[in-house]
């Protein structure tokens, strides 16, 4: 035996240790993988040896290889072996390996329960600390359940080092085993007032993490934290507390008011930037939560903004970044105080640091007004030309659109300018926001009736020069704009100056390289334009006689009929279908033309595309009610059995396309079923039916009636708006003039100079009236814009969606949430439960352990239980009662000095409510909040509370006695 040991020792000398491994890897850079494979083989051999030091060495090497990206989970048994070594050195190696390679789903973790427990209870604080550190990385639900009690015991260890680690460990236990939170919480709370500041800090840390997810359960701790905040000098802890308060204030405005003073003191006194910054952040949170009322807070805002300005002006980029970040929070509620620092923020746009520029961009959103929008967008466009990275450019593009389109284009006074900006944006290379630009174009064209003529002209130009957009493959996403262009030109074809040229542009051969959905839109709009040309070239009635017009129409028909087949050959089914349908229609028209019966055909084709399209709210679809008797989950056809699913469609297909290849089949089937007239009739019939249905359906935007009136409105509105639009256009587009549209602006340039001079003069005298002038005529456009979404939002439930969003996020938090509430009402039962749990857990783990041991354990546990019970009893009181005082204290300072009596009443009323049930507590709190906002008068508040009070009167005595107890305990 001894011999073997000596032999082992000798062999060990020539094993590679970690240093050798690292050196070897560095020396074998060319064939690293081969070398490592060889090393792993060696390690496997070493792991088979009995000598623990050899194993530890091997495991240490594996830990290194793990960092290099090698999966070493095959060695987990050996890791456990090393962990269980009695030597601290090896144990350390083992725990390190475990913390790097194990995770909660590792199966061997079941085997570690007892070993870890032994280590936790070790005499050496470093062994226990090691176990805690390791466990924090790989704790599984089972381990958490089985070891919760041991970790709880460590919370009251005599060594601060262990208490500190145990406190942090408890958070991990809560995450994996939420049931532990309730019984452990009183202990955790004690640790907030631990004599050791490290333990205190750890406890604060844990409570912060818990409270971040569901703050309302931790409101009762506010007084404790408040005391800590005003007494502690540990910056790290202060930051955490202040962050925590930031999370709590939205729930309890009174807390916020109380916080302002100490926070401003800290802001003035601290030299630590990190603390200063967090103070500002929390003050902002407070100000947001109590944004209404309290006039004297403007000073706090001023202070924050002032300090933030100092941060932003600092040469340290980090402070600059954080300053901007905090600014954006203020912006939401107090835009005006931020707007005065516009210069600074625009300056940050030029910063060399991308993160800072992005932050500044965020702020710009709130900085724009009707006056400076063009200027700012111009600046952004220049930045966009200079921007090197595509991601930043994309960000700029989306920001420009976001800024311009906010609140239904609130800040846009001149839509011609906006459209030209959008058109300029289409020239950006390699952006992914093509669809965004396209959507904006569509949206503006649809919503702003007055601008349509201009948009159509621009879009026709775009279509004509589509090769600029599709020219480079890297601009792929920008071709989406053609989708919008084609649709706008087709839909509003009455504004086209030369429909034939546009039609030609749509029919170009190059088009076939576009994505399918764009081609499909092309086909559709070719037909719209075709119909338009038919109607416009000579009145329909005279067409048969007027030979010139007839020749022109025939020519166009010829062209369309000649070019459409290239669409029919498209690989996209959608395009094929639409194109062949369109082709037949054109052929039919041609036939009628030769027969001389084309009168009125144009009008009929146009009527195919009749009807106004209105913007639809994004959630409108969701709001459509499912008709009675329609089960959306029901199969329309029974699903085919999965095995034969592959073969069946193949059998069916031939019957659909009986003759020849697919394309011919299409053409033939269309030819056989008299195409044009029938479809037209059908379409009309369907449309009528649909319109009737829509009229009856309350969920539709009332189409019929309103539409007529609206189109009437348009007719009236169009003329004057167009006229009003022009003078504005003369004033401003020069600022954001695009190279493409220089021609247009040249016409107006001479007038513009005059107008800008005027502007300068008027600016000095009456700035406000200037703005009104700008705004007044364009309100017509704006209301146009605003109407549709309003109608849509009426039928919309914004809240529904928010709830949907929140549900999955909050699902996790609820688990932690519930036990605590229960603890407040049933502290005793919960502890028993928990202890039971722990005992059963113990039983599981220690199957072999004798009854004696268990008895010992139980007897050990009893004092703890007692301890807990006691805690449970009086924690209930101290947390609630001081909190009352805490709040009231404040109510006094905030409002009325003369309400000592009513204050008492409040105190009495509040307590029973909190006792009786948590739900009512919340409710009444909410009510109270509302009332407080509305009525600042303390008396009326009290009286309103008094109305609620009677039901809780019986509990009053209890709480009073509780309070007495409390006093006893405290004294």
């Amino acid at each position, binding site marked *: 035996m001894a011999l073997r040991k000596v032999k082992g020792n000798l062999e060990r*000398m020539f094993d590679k240790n970690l*240093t050798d491994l690292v050196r070897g890897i560095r020396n074998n850079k060319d064939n690293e993988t081969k070398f490592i494979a060889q090393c792993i083989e060696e390690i496997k051999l070493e792991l088979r040896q009995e000598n623990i030091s050899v194993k530890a060495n091997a495991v240490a090497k594996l830990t*290194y290889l793990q960092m290099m990206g090698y999966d070493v989970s095959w060695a987990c048994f050996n890791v456990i072996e090393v962990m269980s070594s009695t030597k601290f050195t090896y144990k350390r190696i083992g725990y*390190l390996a475990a913390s790097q390679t194990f995770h909660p789903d590792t199966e061997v973790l079941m085997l570690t329960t007892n070993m870890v427990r032994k280590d936790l209870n070790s005499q050496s604080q470093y062994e226990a600390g090691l176990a805690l*550190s390791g466990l924090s990385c790989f704790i599984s639900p089972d381990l958490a359940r089985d070891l919760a009690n041991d970790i709880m015991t460590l919370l009251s260890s005599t060594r601060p080092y262990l208490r500190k*680690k145990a406190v942090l460990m408890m958070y991990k236990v809560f995450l994996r085993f939420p049931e532990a939170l309730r019984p452990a919480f009183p202990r955790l709370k004690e640790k907030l007032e631990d004599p050791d500041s490290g333990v205190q800090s750890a406890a604060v840390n844990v409570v912060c993490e818990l409270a971040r997810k569901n703050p309302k359960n931790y409101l009762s701790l506010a007084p404790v934290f408040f005391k800590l905040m005003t007494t502690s000098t540990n910056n790290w802890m202060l930051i955490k507390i202040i962050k925590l308060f930031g999370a709590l204030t939205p729930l309890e405005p009174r807390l916020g008011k109380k916080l302002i003073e100490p926070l401003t003191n800290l802001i003035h006194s601290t030299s630590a930037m990190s603390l200063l910054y967090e103070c500002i952040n929390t003050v902002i949170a407070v100000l947001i939560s109590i944004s209404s009322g309290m006039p004297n807070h403007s000073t706090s805002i001023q202070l924050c903004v002032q300090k933030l300005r100092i941060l932003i002006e600092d040469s340290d980029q980090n402070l600059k970044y954080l300053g901007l970040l905090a600014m954006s929070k203020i912006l939401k509620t107090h835009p005006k105080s931020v707007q005065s620092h516009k210069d600074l923020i625009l300056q940050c746009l030029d910063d060399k640091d991308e*993160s800072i520029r992005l932050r500044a961009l965020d702020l710009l959103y709130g900085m724009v007004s009707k006056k400076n929008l063009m200027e700012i967008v111009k600046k952004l466009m220049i930045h966009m030309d200079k921007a090197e990275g595509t991601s930043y450019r994309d960000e700029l593009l989306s920001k420009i659109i976001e800024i311009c389109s906010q609140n239904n284009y609130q800040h846009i006074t001149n839509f011609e300018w906006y459209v030209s900006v959008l058109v300029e944006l289409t020239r950006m290379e390699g952006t992914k926001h093509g669809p965004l630009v396209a959507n904006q174009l569509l949206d503006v064209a649809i919503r702003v009736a007055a601008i349509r003529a201009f948009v159509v002209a621009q879009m026709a130009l775009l279509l004509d020069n589509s090769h600029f957009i599709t020219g480079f493959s890297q601009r792929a996403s920008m071709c989406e704009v053609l989708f919008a262009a084609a649709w706008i030109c087709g839909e509003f074809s009455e504004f086209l100056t030369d429909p034939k040229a546009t039609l030609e542009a749509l029919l170009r051969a190059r088009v076939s390289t576009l994505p399918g959905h764009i081609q499909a839109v092309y086909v559709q709009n070719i037909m719209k334009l075709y119909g338009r040309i038919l109607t416009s070239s000579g009145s329909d009635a005279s067409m048969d006689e007027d030979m010139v017009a007839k020749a022109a129409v025939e020519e166009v028909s010829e062209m369309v009929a000649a070019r459409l087949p290239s669409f029919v050959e498209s690989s996209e089914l959608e395009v094929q279908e639409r194109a062949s349908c369109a082709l037949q229609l054109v052929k039919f028209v041609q036939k009628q033309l030769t027969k001389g019966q084309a009168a009125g055909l144009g009008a009929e084709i146009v009527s195919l595309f009749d009807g106004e399209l209105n913007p639809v709210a994004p959630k409108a679809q969701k709001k459509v009610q499912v008709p009675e008797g329609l089960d959306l989950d029901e199969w329309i056809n029974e699903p085919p059995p999965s095995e034969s699913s592959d073969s069946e469609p193949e059998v069916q297909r031939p019957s659909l396309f009986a003759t020849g290849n697919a394309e011919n089949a299409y053409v033939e089937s269309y030819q056989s079923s008299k195409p044009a007239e029938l479809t037209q009739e059908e379409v009309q019939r369907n449309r009528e039916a649909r319109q009737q249905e829509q009229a009856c359906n309350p969920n539709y935007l009332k189409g019929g009636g309103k539409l007529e009136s609206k189109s009437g409105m348009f007719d009236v509105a169009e003329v004057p708006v167009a006229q009003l639009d022009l003078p504005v256009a003369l004033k401003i587009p020069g600022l954001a003039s695009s190279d493409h549209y220089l021609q247009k602006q040249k016409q107006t340039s001479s007038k513009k100079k005059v107008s800008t001079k005027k502007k300068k003069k008027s600016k000095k005298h009456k700035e406000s009236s200037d703005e009104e002038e700008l705004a007044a005529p364009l309100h017509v456009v704006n209301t146009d814009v605003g109407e549709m979404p309003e109608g849509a939002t009426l039928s919309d439930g914004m809240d529904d969606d928010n709830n949907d969003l929140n549900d999955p996020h909050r699902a996790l938090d609820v688990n932690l949430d519930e036990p605590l509430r229960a603890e407040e009402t049933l502290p005793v039962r919960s502890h028993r439960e928990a202890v039971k749990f722990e005992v059963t857990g113990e039983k599981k783990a220690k199957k072999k352990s004798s009854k004696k041991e268990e008895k010992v354990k139980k007897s050990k546990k009893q004092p703890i239980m007692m301890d807990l019970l006691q805690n449970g009893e009086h924690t209930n009181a101290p947390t609630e009662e001081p909190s009352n005082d805490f709040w009231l204290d404040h109510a006094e300072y905030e409002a009325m000095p003369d309400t000592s009596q009513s204050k008492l009443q409040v105190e009495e009323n509040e307590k029973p409510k909190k006792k009786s049930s948590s739900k009512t507590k919340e409710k009444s709190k909410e009510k109270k909040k509302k009332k407080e906002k509305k009525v600042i008068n303390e008396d009326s508040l009290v009286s309103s509370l008094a109305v609620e009070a009677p039901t809780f009167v019986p509990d009053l005595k209890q709480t009073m006695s509780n309070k007495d107890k409390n006093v006893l305990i405290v004294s």
Partner: protein
Amino acid sequence: MIKAILVFNNHGKPRLSKFYQYFNEDMQQQIIKETFQLVSKRDDNVCNFLEGGSLIGGSDYKLIYRHYATLYFVFCVDSSESELGILDLIQVFVETLDKCFENVCELDLIFHVDKVHYILNELVMGGMVLETNMSEILTRIEEQNKLEKLEAGITAAPARAVSAVKNMNLSQQIKDIKLPDLPQAIKDLKF
């Protein structure tokens, strides 16, 4: 919460990786690679915060890093951590390393990654900050090292001797032996 702590050099070679949330090895490597790409293209005079990093976390997460000579120290944290606080923590970490290794350099991290882990364990535990006071951290580390030394005692002597011999790195030392520059010596000889 701190989600991950990564240390890598200017070429993206990992020198320390500590994940406080489970990712498999491939994912870990990918995260290191992605983080390196994000961090390395930034100038030294820009701010030390980075949003994004699609692999780890989400919008709530930030990368906070510092660049020291050849090494990047990157902490991935969520919004409950103070940005400037974490920067200070990185500073504490590096200063502690400096104290423990005496003028720490990349080589120390390469060859003693285990020790770096032990030091880190005294700063951060399970993604939460354990201690920020450097002297406290140092005493804890020293006490644990003492424990190891006590255990090592005589039994580990042979192994240490061997490793000492290995560390001498004879072949390299032979190379390093400087012989007088012969041609120069010859030139110096004047007849």
